[in-house]
């Protein structure tokens, strides 16, 4: 059943990619450009494909739930794919409100990227440790993910706004930072490519090393080690010999993955620039030229307004209730808790700046981008780098 469910996830992933093509077609199709507010045929097909993809992923989710006996949101793979699914779900809802195919063209790639990213982590069905054995697992984690996904829609809207509004005829700070944001997305793609490639070739290199407590330990690399662990010794033959060694306090394996992802990102980015012969954002700009800027701004704001209460409920209130039951206290300054608070404070600042200080348009769009970076930081870095009570069995 787990294998069957995985097929549905894969189908959903492909359908999202197909959906992107249709939404792209919807933008490029000039015949209906004059008819406002009525999505053309391409957009309608794109939406149907997206919904079918969403249902397929929902099937994956339900089958996996049945197979494991608990909601599949208990490890990094499960949570991240659920987050991707929520993002698609949030997009579908927002699409029915505003009917903008362009939002699909920006949201679906992000969702697909998130799902692909999550699939790079161990996909086994993990049994629940005692702290997770509670119905609050389903309630807290799903609500939080849905809240974050709705907030992430504002990132897609913000990105559209920036691609459209930032002047690409001259080099400015805005063009630079926009490229940095896009490079971040491209590096994630780089990570997916690198991980998939070496997983397909079954690469494995084992090391003996001395860990931070001064004890001998072993580590298995699944991608070639550019950096090796502290005082490493490669135990496999014919494997790539690391170029550097890290101090014991740094996890060499994770650093190695980051370096590979960035390197792959740079290669992809340079290739793109060479093909496009302009900034990536500049290449995207023509796609956004027919969009109503006020509408995009409104979508971004609206998604924060809708997502903020949901996130508060799932990420703070339900989280506190469960923490009181499982960990004896509703708040303990665990890194994940702190970063949920930071996310919440950030969006609170966003709303105050918008409501009272009149931060609309470009400023608001930049804030939405920063907000998404904070959410991703909490998902990725806090789990993998700053270990705490929430650290999943990721690798």
């Amino acid at each position: 059943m787990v294998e069957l469910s995985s097929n549905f996830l894969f189908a959903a992933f492909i359908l999202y990619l197909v959906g992107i093509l249709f939404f792209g077609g919807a933008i490029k199709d000039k015949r209906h450009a004059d008819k406002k507010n009525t999505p053309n045929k391409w957009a309608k097909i794109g939406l149907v494909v997206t919904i079918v993809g969403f249902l397929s992923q929902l099937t994956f989710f339900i089958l996996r739930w049945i197979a494991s006996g608990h909601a599949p949101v208990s490890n990094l793979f499960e949570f991240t794919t659920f987050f991707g699914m929520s993002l698609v779900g949030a997009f579908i809802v927002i699409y029915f409100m505003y009917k903008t195919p362009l939002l699909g063209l920006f949201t679906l790639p992000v969702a697909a990227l998130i799902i692909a990213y999550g699939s790079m982590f161990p996909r086994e069905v993990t049994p629940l440790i005692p702290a997770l054995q509670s119905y609050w697992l389903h309630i807290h984690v799903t609500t939080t993910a849905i809240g974050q996904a709705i907030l992430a829609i504002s990132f897609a809207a913000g990105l559209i706004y920036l691609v459209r509004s930032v002047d690409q005829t001259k080099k400015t700070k805005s063009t630079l930072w926009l490229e940095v944001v896009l490079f971040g997305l491209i590096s994630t793609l780089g990570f997916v490519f690198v991980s998939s490639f070496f997983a397909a070739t079954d690469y494995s290199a084992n090391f003996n090393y001395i860990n931070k407590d001064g004890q001998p330990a072993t580590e298995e690399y699944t991608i070639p080690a550019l950096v090796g662990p502290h005082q490493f010794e490669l135990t496999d033959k014919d494997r790539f010999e690391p170029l550097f060694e890290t101090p014991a306090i740094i996890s060499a394996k994770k650093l190695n993955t980051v370096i590979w992802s960035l390197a792959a990102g740079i290669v992809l980015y340079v290739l793109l620039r060479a093909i496009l012969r302009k900034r990536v954002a500049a290449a995207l700009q023509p796609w956004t030229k027919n969009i109503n800027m006020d509408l995009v701004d409104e979508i971004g704001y609206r998604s924060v307004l809708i997502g903020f209460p949901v996130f508060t409920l799932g990420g703070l209130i339900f989280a506190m209730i469960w923490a009181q039951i499982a960990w004896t206290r509703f708040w303990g300054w665990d890194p994940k808790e702190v970063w949920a608070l930071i996310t919440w404070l950030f969006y609170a600042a966003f709303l105050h700046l918008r409501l009272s200080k009149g931060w609309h348009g470009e400023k608001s769009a930049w804030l939405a981008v920063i907000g998404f970076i904070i959410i991703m930081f909490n998902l990725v870095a806090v789990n993998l780098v700053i270990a705490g009570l929430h650290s999943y069995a990721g690798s």
Partner: protein
Amino acid sequence: MNEVKCECGHINPQGTILCESCGRVLEDKEKEKQLVDMRYEGSARRSQTYNKTIIDKIWNFFSSVKVGVWLIIILLVASSLGTIFPQEMYIPPVMPAWEYYEEQYGWLGKLYYDLGFHNLYSSWWYLLLIAALGISLVIASLDRVVPLYRSLKNQRVSRHESFLKRQRMFSTSDAVLTDEAVGKIKENLTKKRYKLREENGDILAEKNRFSRWGPYVNHLGLIIFLIGGMLRFVPGMYVDEILWLREGETKAIPGTEGRYYLENNQFIFEVYDKDKDEEVFQDAINKAGTVVKNYQTDATLYQRQGEIVPGEKPELEKIRDQAIQVNKPLKIDGFALYQVDYKLDEMSKMAFKLENKETGDQFGDVTVDLYDPEMKYDLGKGYKVEVMSYFPDFEFNEDGEPATKSRIPNNPAFIFKMFTPENTEGEVSFVAIRQNLEPLGENDYKMTFAGIETKNVTALTVRKDHTLWIIGLGGLIFMIGVIQGAYWNHRRVWLRRINNQVWTAAHTNKNWHGLKRELEDVFSDSGIAAPEDQVAEEKKE
């Protein structure tokens, strides 16, 4: 207090920008603007009116949204600093904190410690920041909610021309307002759940005014939440104790003043078994090695009967048996007992045999209860063993003397005196794990180790938190407020007949796009122009 009388006759508080009743612009500065600032209905906010005394200045400082946002940002950055390295409460208590940070994280760790970031969230400056934010919440809310309430309550149906034409959504039509058209518009508005008020043939349609109170309701919730957090420091509101309980042991539950007792019948520690548990978990178990399935204390709860008599054993009445697991605390009378820690196989009894070193003959068993050892063991026929000293957690102290680190039998050691028919004065033997010393010279007999018994120990956190309901109430009110403010929009539509023209204007506190679509529906087929967005027009030009 000075007051401002508007031409329409309404008396406004000093500092009012737009007349509460008719909306006429009262401030000269505002008259120059093409659109009026509708954020707080042009009401008289204290912070915008007075700035003389020190109290005014403090009030104005904290009522500013700019200051509020800065406080949020500073708090946000400060909070993130505390996650760079673990807080002191999460580091293993194996060495002093300063040493740990320096050893683990080098000079950065030392700096972290020196700056006090290892206890950042209870530092005076962090608490001060939260307090400042709390004050800002109160003052900023009061500064706005009272005048806003007055304005919305006193608003008249027929607003002044200068008010209408300075609305973002505004239009005029050179049309006669027929009864039919009015009827149609009114019907449409009612369909959209607007509440209608009419005066001299003018119309004010309004809906969801309550959404304007959302921000103030959620701020109130936050204040209650923060007060709840503060109450933790009031004695008696909060109990945080730990109860270590060995299997078979019964102890008073700390914090209950001896009213409740708990017995640990058994502590269970289970891991997932790849053969017995669901097949679907096999891969994960193979990979991880051990995955814990359950921590459980089978406990019996007792209540003491009668008064406490010092020195006397309490009379206990059983209340119930309960299994305490993670996520399933035992609750009694406002107290909750949580499964938080354990120790498997703690030594509870140690058995020895008295043995003649030469012949190997053994003379009876000595079983020592490590928690509460008996001091004399008579083995009969003139054989006797006395415990001269007992060190439950043996070490040599700084002076090289045998000592005990704690009362927990982690490393028990004994000094025995062995009495035998040959040595009626007794021989002294020092026995520890894998050690057998004869400090006072060669002995004829020795104590031979004959086995140990172990018990599991459970650790339960005992918690009482009378602040929980206040914190919960604060959270609930916050959620209500934030939903109220976020999911509804306060909208108004004005319709006035002025000199053979029909003027329409509309306002919403947010989501202008939605308002525009709504207005298109409302005014369609009425012959009257729907209010148009003057901001968007400007942009086009």
